[in-house]
């Protein structure tokens, strides 16, 4: 027998955590924008941001003439894109884990990222311009949703989805899709450099258009996730209990899975494949604010932004040579995945 500890993430501590995370995010954005080849003080960054918003020239009097350009046109788009993509991947992670009842699920381990990348590669290969700037995200979305259903169909037996089959199917499908992407690279002549560069995953050379597209889709996704947060909680009781509580499990599942795939697709199409963010963040946040999705969703959204922005800033400003962000997150996230996987196995044995 062991002593049962009093532990609980009360709504009040949850709220405090959210305020703390929000404050940290603002701080990290300002710090990250100031860091780089040219160091810019936090005060100057804030003044330039307000100048950019208001157009009041008095705010930037006495600041190096190059700084407003560096902050507003070069660094802020990259910083904000990284933050929004971090939010998106974490949201997708919360939803995939909650709906598939699997703490190991995330867009990367389920192969959804690879599906989106495959779709986007096809768009780049065929150089489809008819849909304008939306062609890559749309193809990525189609790839993500198709992969989602393929993985689910592969792991379903007798009407139920087994958690471990799901991860296995994700890995199988992702392997096939990476081979497909390699094939596309092989047949692409002139487009190959674009595809390779994009696949590496980078936030370099992002523009305000990228920020705008990513933000609008992730924001819509966030609203849907918040709206269904309570249903997501109840879904963890299983379909039968959920539906006896007045929830339509199939409708909720499809809505949220498609939402998460949309978020994943837009993130992948703007930044390439970035793994494990959606796995790590929901875990850490469950530890901080508890499992209630009404707190978990906003907390993960904020923490994801902080983590990915910090990681991007490390590769951009601190390391001697810029390494692809996807490599960095995989180096941190891979061992973390092993840890959760091992912990789950021992939990199953002892329980």
């Amino acid at each position: 027998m062991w002593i049962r500890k009093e532990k609980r993430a009360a709504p009040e501590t949850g709220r405090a955590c959210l305020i703390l995370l929000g404050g940290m995010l603002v701080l990290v954005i300002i710090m990250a924008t100031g860091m780089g080849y040219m160091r810019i003080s936090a005060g100057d960054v804030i003044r330039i941001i307000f100048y950019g918003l208001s157009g009041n020239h008095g705010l930037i009097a006495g600041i190096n003439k190059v700084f407003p350009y560096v902050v507003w046109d070069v660094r802020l788009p990259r910083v904000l894109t990284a933050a929004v993509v971090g939010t998106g991947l974490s949201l997708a992670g919360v939803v995939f884990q909650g709906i598939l009842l699997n703490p190991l699920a995330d867009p990367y381990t389920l192969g959804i990222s690879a599906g989106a990348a495959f779709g986007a590669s096809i768009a780049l290969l065929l150089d489809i311009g008819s849909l304008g700037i939306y062609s890559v995200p749309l193809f990525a979305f189609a790839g993500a949703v198709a992969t989602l259903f393929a993985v689910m169909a592969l792991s379903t037996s007798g009407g139920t989805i087994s958690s471990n089959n799901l991860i296995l199917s994700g890995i199988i499908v992702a392997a096939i899709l990476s081979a497909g992407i390699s094939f596309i690279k092989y047949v692409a002549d002139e487009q190959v450099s674009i595809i390779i560069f994009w696949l590496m995953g980078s936030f370099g050379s992002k523009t305000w258009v990228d920020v705008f597209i990513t933000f609008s889709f992730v924001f819509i996704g966030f609203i849907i996730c918040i709206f269904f947060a309570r249903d997501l909680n109840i879904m963890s009781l299983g379909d039968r209990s959920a539906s006896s509580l007045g929830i339509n499990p199939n409708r909720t599942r499809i809505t949220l899975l498609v939402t998460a795939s949309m978020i994943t697709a837009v993130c992948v199409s703007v930044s390439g494949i970035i793994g494990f963010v959606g796995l790590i963040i929901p875990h850490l946040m469950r530890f901080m604010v508890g499992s209630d999705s009404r707190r978990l969703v906003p907390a993960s959204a904020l923490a994801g932004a902080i983590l990915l922005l910090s990681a991007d800033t490390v590769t951009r400003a601190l390391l001697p040579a810029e390494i692809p962000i996807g490599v960095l997150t995989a180096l941190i996230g891979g061992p973390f995945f092993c840890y959760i996987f091992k912990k789950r196995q021992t939990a199953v044995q002892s329980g």
Partner: protein
Amino acid sequence: MGKDLIFEMEDLSFHYGRTRAVDNLSLTLSSGCFWGLLGPNGCGKSTLLDLMARCKTPQAGIIKYRGRDIRDYGSKVIAREIALVPQDFHVNFPFTVEEILLMGRHPYIPRFASPSSDDLQVVDQVMEVLKIAKFRHNYITELSGGEKQRVIFARALAQDTPVVLLDEATSNMDIRHTLDILDIVAGDVETGGKTVIAALHNLNLAATYCDKLVFMKSGRVVSQGDRDQVLTEEILYEVFGIESRVYFDEYVGSRQVAFRRRRP
């Protein structure tokens, strides 16, 4: 309290692919009773409960709840009428016991609203009755199998419905907790006018607690009625294909079933 009809099912069918789980079944159940649903594995008991809880839609036939087609009720309305306690459940995420019980109040709490004092009071009462108040702030993932099942049962009681459906809800519990829970629901039937419909495997527990029994086989009803009329050696042979002895037990205060080894 009159014994009105609560469920009227006519020509109900439900099949998974080509397997017929419920086959052209007709059944009427009166309210204010403890109904036991008995039959061999795979005879369609769980499916029937799912149909009654509206977790599944029948491919043919009609279910009337309190005289009205069950499809005409709103989903929140039905959730305030009928609760289902499933047989197996896996909660993979560390929700606290209190959070799980509050999920049972879902049909009463509007989206984005906090639980009212009524909701919290019901949850407190249920925890008191089921003796799980001491686990209130513990994570469900760290409870034992039997404790978890009590929490899931408490979740359904917190739903505070006039009809409770139990699908082998005591299968993981030791005998003391089983008796505790069956005592609670039987008490709710007698004093609170609830209707309980329980799929059970243990014939003697069914005989001890249920006043009405329904025997099912291959998706159809073989026999239904008062316990003392339908719990007979002939029906047990017809339904389960086993020899048994049915006798009145003074200690229990009802009929019981005895079995013996078939090979010496």
